[in-house]
């Protein structure tokens, strides 16, 4: 059975994992594996289903909740010796892989993935020792069940 939210997340992750370049981009879904080291991309998802009160024009005449408003918060992480440059490199690969791409999700018509906002590389103080930099990019798309 297909689960729409999971299908959207999987479709986005597939795009990121197919990012061009060598070696393959390491991509985590919601949690970095134990012992995982930079560079990598960590993706968190935020999915909302607007109701008829907030966005009546987004619903069909039958008032069924047909729209998914998806956000992918991508942490692009790089470490010394290149530091912020390594984080930007990951961010560049992710951007090239997902920006303006249209996800293929069964039963849904998706708008292209857009960049919404982000933060420049910042030193992650949670990780002791080697300097780790984290650039955040927020991508989003809307989808309507067809």
């Amino acid at each position, binding site marked *: 059975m297909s689960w729409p939210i999971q299908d959207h997340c999987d479709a986005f992750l597939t795009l990121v994992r197919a990012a061009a370049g060598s070696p393959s981009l390491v991509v985590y879904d919601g949690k970095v594996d134990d012992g995982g080291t930079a560079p990598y991309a960590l993706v968190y998802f*935020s999915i*909302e289903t*607007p109701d008829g009160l*907030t966005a*009546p024009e987004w619903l069909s005449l039958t008032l069924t909740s047909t729209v998914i408003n998806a*956000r992918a918060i991508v*942490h692009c992480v790089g470490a010394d010796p290149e530091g912020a440059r390594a984080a930007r490199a990951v961010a560049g690969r992710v951007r090239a892989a997902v920006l303006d791409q249209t996800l293929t999700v069964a039963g849904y018509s998706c708008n292209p993935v857009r960049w919404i906002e982000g933060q420049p590389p910042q030193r992650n103080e949670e*990780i002791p020792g080697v300097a780790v930099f984290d650039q955040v990019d927020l991508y989003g798309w809307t989808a309507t069940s067809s």
Partner: protein
Amino acid sequence: MGIEFDTHEITVLADAINKASRVAPADAAKVVFVGAINIKKDAARRIRGHQRLRKLPWSIDFDTYRSLKGPAAEIGPNHAKGQGALGNIAEYGTVNNPPIPFMRPAADAEQPRFERAMEDLAVKALGL
């Protein structure tokens, strides 16, 4: 034999736009103000109840100002208030902590209401 154009409808419309432009900025500023309050309240509701971020909902603040494009508002955690500097950590998460988006979803939820209010204002100002 010349051609005559009846332009009175254009003149009436131009007059309506001219009159509307006098009152619109003040009314638009009110709509922006209400929208900012709605986003602030909704964002606080979304982040409330988090054990480690008890003060963050109370740090959400907003400023209204007149930009080159018209009335505008800047809404978000105030760094001068308790835990206000943690707003981006909650919104985007970190590599060790998942995010709790609260500002962006609140803005997204307000957007259609804000657009409707501005449409209503335009219709009212133009006397349509």
